[in-house]
């Protein structure tokens, strides 16, 4: 089964072609890494996949439904099944860790009911139902931060923040997680720890993973397949077992 399918995707900014006809797909359970130098189009590709940016042409299908032609309602529904981890963890600073994790389940509450404000109880952990809170605690336990549940999000270190963001994504019970350079803002040690935890959890839960990275070793270690972008085109698309570090370094030339 194909989770994400991208066909002939094109996007240009101010007349400069950033994505120039991309074609690839991700089967269920695969971890795919996108590499490429700055400006190769990685972030634009992620933004298009999340439909934060409208592509000029081409199509994006997630779970067999076309993202480009979705209504706001359907887009929200689709998004609630896709976890997103950003380079800058994007937690709400003044709220508790637990509240931030519970935010991951707002989409689910909106799916259950058509009424407006149906997720009102999940704005903070104080008003959330017991079942939601214990699920969030469970997600925090998976990333090893259960003891910090009631600490404020802005009191955490970078690595801890990124782990909370991962817990928030797990809270969605996602089938697909899209991560935009998840380790780029962390120091090498924390980056290594967070990434290995992240990939272990995704494998355990059979979550399909699409992530961009600057770290070719990490891509080789954790991805099943690597796609390299160069000037908006795919210049390499291979299984990791057949690849060596030198092959990837040359993609940056």
């Amino acid at each position: 089964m194909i989770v994400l399918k991208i066909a002939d995707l094109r996007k240009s900014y101010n007349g400069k072609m950033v994505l120039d006809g991309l074609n690839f797909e991700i089967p269920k359970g695969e971890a795919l890494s996108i590499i490429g130098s700055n400006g190769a189009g990685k972030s634009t590709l992620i933004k298009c996949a999340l439909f934060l940016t409208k592509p000029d042409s081409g199509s994006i299908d997630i779970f067999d439904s076309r993202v480009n032609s979705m209504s706001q309602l359907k887009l929200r529904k689709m998004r609630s099944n896709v976890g997103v981890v950003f380079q800058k963890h994007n937690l709400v600073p003044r709220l508790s860790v637990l509240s931030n994790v519970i935010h991951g389940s707002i989409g689910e509450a909106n799916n259950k009911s058509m009424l407006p404000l149906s997720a009102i109880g999940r704005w903070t952990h104080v008003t959330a139902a017991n079942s939601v809170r214990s699920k969030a605690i469970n997600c925090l336990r998976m990333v090893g931060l259960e003891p910090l549940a009631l600490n404020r999000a802005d009191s955490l270190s970078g690595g801890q923040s990124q782990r909370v963001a991962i817990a928030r994504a797990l809270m969605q019970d996602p089938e697909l997680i899209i991560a935009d350079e998840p380790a780029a803002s962390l120091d090498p040690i924390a980056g290594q720890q967070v990434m290995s935890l992240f990939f272990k959890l995704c494998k355990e839960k059979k979550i399909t993973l699409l992530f961009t990275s600057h770290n070719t070793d990490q891509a080789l270690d954790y991805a099943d397949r690597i796609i390299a972008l160069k000037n908006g085109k795919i210049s390499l698309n291979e299984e990791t077992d057949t690849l060596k570090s030198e092959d990837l370094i040359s993609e940056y030339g």
Partner: protein
Amino acid sequence: MNMDDAPRRLPPKLHFYILCLVLFVLFSGWSFSGSGFSFSKLIGSPEYLMDFLRRAFPPFSEHRITWDAFFRYLAALVETIQMAFAGTILGIIFGFILALLASKNLLFTSPYLRPIQVLSKGIIAFFRTVPDLVWAIIFVVVVGLGAFAGTLAIMVDTIGFCGRFFAEEMEEVDKSPAEALECCGATKVDAVFSAVIPAAMPGFIATSLFAFEKAVRSSVVLGIVGAGGIGLQLQSLFNFFSYDRAMVIIGMIFILVLAIEQISNYARQKIINR
């Protein structure tokens, strides 16, 4: 080294700055002449000043103040605080709602709904630019003399003040956490309430405390136009030349405003450092 390489000493548009300075000096002189500013009037008639001071000090002396009168002033002072507080609370609530509607890039981003945002901003600007004393005069006409008119005037003034600053605080908050939530299925309203408002909260509280301080100061004078509070007493004492009693009231106002400012400063420090 060639002198041409040295960094320039004077700004490039020097003549423009000099023109601005000349205009500023001319405008200042023109304004002072228009305001009838006169040193001779201020210090040249010592008998009026001495008369005022003799009647005003010591407070209580000329007509011995009774406890009865003192408690009347105290009751008026309490009414002043009540007006200020009730008006501020109402103003914060309605100001918050208007600020939600009026903030750019918050709820009404689609071109069809933009007019609502622009209209809300306009209402806030209108409430803010008309002075509170003018609102008080209008409400005295509408609901009659008394504290209710003053409360409404303070409410409208606070809506203008809080609406503007609440909206600015929400516009300045880092929007990426809110976008992250929208990326995982939250609605715009969810994202605003769970990501934007918590981040803007310290600003909201600081603004609300300033609004209350401002309301206390303005509720003191609203009585002059008959909108309740201690201003009415103050004005009638001045009309009857009872400057000594007026001094008592001015002292009470001074203590009240100072106390409110100290308390709100303390609370603001606590919140900002948290």
